[in-house]
């Protein structure tokens, strides 16, 4: 397996990179760690003429804002993220989710931004199409779907582990589209939910940093990844739960439940969340019914050998476990 040929450009700043993306248009693709893009390029699913690399861009270390929010460089590697004491303290859920991604070697190259912008995955798509599934499917610009031949949409899965964690923490995404073209928005707005074009970013936009607000950052939380193997593997589904608990230690003030790998983007279990504020989290019925609600409102797509019904069942189990874990006695500082 070898990479296709491309012209390599290495801008010195994020703004410059965005400018280049703008100039080259569709012919260019941005690369950070390359751990998602390079396999796709080797399979010839992506064959950019220009590769705009972020490897020459100066990175910054995670730091706290005056209001206690944690700012993390989108170019930070997941390995550094999972080792960073400040992240572990102020956004332990992010550090946990990052540690669940792929393998140590990959985490040392993979970046946070790349993880959030991961391409959607499908068994029929993540192949090289030289002698199997040769006709392009929707995702490759064709007009058929191998997965659901009768349908007219793409059912590929957005499998990032960190995205649901950020979603549950009300994280803010900062992007640049070139000099003077910065904007920020809640992470939920990063995703379209459509696997054909999963991100709302403009073609020239680059994620520069993320801001984890303090409200959820250090609250009770749990991250669970359901997969067949313990070692490196994408999630069958992943669940991130973040809770704000009243001073009595049991009454829920606010709750976030986010689920990954079940659709074309990370999803929130809004109905399940809505039922929790004011409830006693130590009551097992409370969490049980929240989990049941989550499994009602989210319909996982079958993928990578997992059947839909099974995922749905396990979604309930994992949400229940995550809620129970998060509601349980405050975890010891994970340092």
């Amino acid at each position, binding site marked *: *397996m*070898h990479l*296709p*040929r491309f012209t390599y450009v290495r801008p010195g700043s994020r703004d410059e990179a965005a400018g280049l993306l703008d100039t080259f248009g569709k012919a260019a693709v941005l690369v950070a760690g390359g751990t998602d893009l390079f396999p796709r390029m080797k*399979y010839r699913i992506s064959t950019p003429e220009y590769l705009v690399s972020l490897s020459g861009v100066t990175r910054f270390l995670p730091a706290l804002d005056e209001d206690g929010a944690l700012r993390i460089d989108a170019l930070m590697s997941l390995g550094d993220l999972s080792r960073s004491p400040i992240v572990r303290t102020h956004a332990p859920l992010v550090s946990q989710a990052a540690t669940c991604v792929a393998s140590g070697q990959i985490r040392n190259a993979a970046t946070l931004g790349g993880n959030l912008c991961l391409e959607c995955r499908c*068994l*029929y798509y*993540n*192949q*090289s199409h*030289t*002698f*199997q*599934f*040769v006709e392009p499917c929707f995702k490759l610009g064709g007009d058929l779907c191998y997965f659901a031949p009768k349908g007219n949409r793409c059912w590929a899965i957005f499998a990032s582990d960190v995205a649901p964690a950020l979603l549950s923490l009300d994280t803010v995404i900062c992007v640049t589209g070139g000099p003077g073209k910065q904007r920020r928005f809640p992470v939920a707005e990063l995703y379209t939910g459509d696997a054909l074009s999963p991100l709302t970013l403009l073609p020239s936009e680059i994620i520069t940093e993320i801001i984890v607000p303090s409200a959820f950052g250090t609250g009770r939380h749990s991250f669970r990844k*359901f997969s*067949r*193997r*313990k*070692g*490196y*593997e*994408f999630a069958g589904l992943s669940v991130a739960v973040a809770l704000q608990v009243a001073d009595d230690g049991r009454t829920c003030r606010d709750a976030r439940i986010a689920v990954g790998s079940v659709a074309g983007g990370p999803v929130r279990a809004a109905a399940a969340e809505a039922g929790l504020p004011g409830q006693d989290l130590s009551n097992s019925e409370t969490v049980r019914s929240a989990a049941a609600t989550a499994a009602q409102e989210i319909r996982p797509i079958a993928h*990578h*050998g*997992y*059947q839909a019904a*099974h995922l749905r*069942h*396990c979604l309930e*189990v*994992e949400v229940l476990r995550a809620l129970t874990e998060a509601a349980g006695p405050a975890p010891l500082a994970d340092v």
Partner: protein
Amino acid sequence: MSDPLKYVGQPIARVDGPAKVTGKARFTVDVQPPGTLVCRILRSPHPHARILGIDISAAQKLPGVKAVVTADDTLKIKHGFVETPRYPADQYPLAVGVVRHVGEEIAAVAAVDEHTAEAALKLIKVEYEILPAVFDPEEAMKADAPEVHPSHPKVTEPFRNIAGKTETGWGDVDQGLAESDYVRTDRFESHLRTHGYLEPQATVASWEDGKLNVWTSSMGPFIKRKKLAQTLGLPLSAVRVHKSYVGGAFGGKIDLFSHEFCAALLSMKTGRPVKVVVSREEIFAAYRHGQPLIVELTTGVKKDGSIVAQRIRTINNCGAYKGSGVVVIFLSWGFAMATYRIPNMAYEGFAVYTNNTVRCPQRGHGAPQMRFAIESQMDMIAEEIGLDPVAIRLVNARLPDEQLPNGDNVHNCGLVECIEKAAERINLRERYGSSRNKAAEGGSLRRGVGIGVSAYFGGSLIYPNSSSVIVKLNDDGSLIILTGSLDIGQGAETILTQIVAEELQVPISQISIMAADTETTPVDIGVWISGNAYVTGNAAREAAMAVRHKILEIAAQELETETCQLVLSEKAVSVTGAPERRMSYAEIYEASVRSRRGDPIIGEGHWRTMRDVPTHPSLATAKGRWTENYAFDAQAAEVEVDIETGKARLVRAVTAHDCGFPINPLNVDGQIDGQVSMALGHAFLEEVMMENGRTLNPSWLEYRMPTIGEMALSESIDVITESYVVGQPYRTKEVGEGYVSAILAAIANALYDAVGVRLYTTPFTPERILKALKEKAQADSGNA
């Protein structure tokens, strides 16, 4: 009493360890002669199609392309895993007229680099007429099924697509079943798995001055030389297969593969070295995998659990060509009859063509599938008649010196001891049934234990039938071993070195080994018939003996004593009781050259299993002897099931094995650990997912091999039944593939013990386990 063994039987570190741990060991993928061209292969996108035309002209014109070949550039000579009068060779190295599975090889190019080679493939235009295809074996047997190949002419049943049939038996099964106190019939299905060798398939071929030099990731250079010579129309002497280290094989690198043929042909065409490294994706989607067997099993027992009769029918989804699909239906019979006494048996096995990739041996070659069926049913029977799993196995287990129906003898069979020891170690008698459906500590986890047994042959007769070894003394008293045997990770080089070290009392570090080169090393059976330790090992011992004889003769002459007065130690010979009367091997060498017309002391040894048996047994009737050595084992498993998600894992495996005599206990343990790991992958994780002949998961991300996270505790117990005595032939059994089978059955049985559900189909996925739990809950509440 003879002296204690110093090298044989010791846990000696592998002799190729330093080369492998420093990155110096050269694998085929590392071979890169100057000026090497890159070869890529064009494969069929269709499971079944007629080739109406191939146009290579555009590809040939692409700058950087040095040659393009299709079937028209070949001699159209077929090859096959089996090449017998009943099962003649049936596969062209490049498709002639028809393709029968997705990924079948149609053309190959040699170009200056990968980019050019791949661009050239895109320029080859093939016109197809798509033919109807069939993928399921039972569908393929139907009268109106698409025909992959005509049914075998000797098969009389009105089935389509029969590649081969094995039919055998003894006694009267109908009467046996009628006389049984309890009879049951079950159907078990196994799924498609693959070897997962880490080193991809790869070949370098270099045609120089009328000689084809080949480096290829294989399981034996001599069989590759034969098949390459045959299909290329070259004399054997024009083909040289060189040694390279092999990054795992597990049965998957025996056959001739088209990429090997293509690299060779392209090198002959271009006069330049040609290298092909097959992509992991091609290996998963187009290469040979193991064999998914359907086993229908009827067993009748007496009240005491003793088997009276067994009827077995297997159906093998054999893929688009015979491959080893017609062998596995023979072997499955062997794996059924070797462990237990079965007074009446009727066996029939069908290999059925389908438009899937070709099958080849995979570690265990039918045994895991067969033992899963038999051992699962054994537990079901035991439960029905009120016996425990250990008792029913002890009643039926073969005893030492039993004669098998095919004329083989089990000799010093340690099966009973294996069963008892494995059961005892995991405390099976007490634990089995005691914790069923009970949570360990509240929670959703359940644990259970189970047992299975198995037997495996060690060496059979198949080309080239012989292993020969040469041992040379150097003038400094060190040794060189020449062997055609190949180290694929199992430790062949190490155990041969140990044997020679023991026979000649030369330290391991003073012995170098030259292996697996068809030109400079003697012939070898190859490392795919589970006979290396026995056949090649005895050849090495004989070669060392020949050297020993010469050393002793010369020493006796020079020290003026009888050879029986001499002892060997540390590269020297001395007189018993008079250690000062001593000659070093260097001095002996010098004396030999001086006094024996230059004889530098070279020993040759050879070995053949079953020396009085002319040929291998009949694949059609199973008549004829199969092997000299049966290894036996009992394996126990502890399994944990999460009843909420259905996820299950192997926690602990105990292997009590009668491998005869462990020449290197460290190697034996390593083989067992690896097989336990493979079996847990088989049981819970791995599956080549296919849809209409296309592979959905052609990558390691999605073909879920165990990672370190799935590791199970693996313990082994030696049941030693044979011995090694210096100067005498020894009988040892095999350790390389016999221990993937009983453990699979043990896992199935432990799963049942944990949660009370019986799965008849592998793998035991969370979906299947949950579904079975749900059905059980419904049935239980229905009964209540």
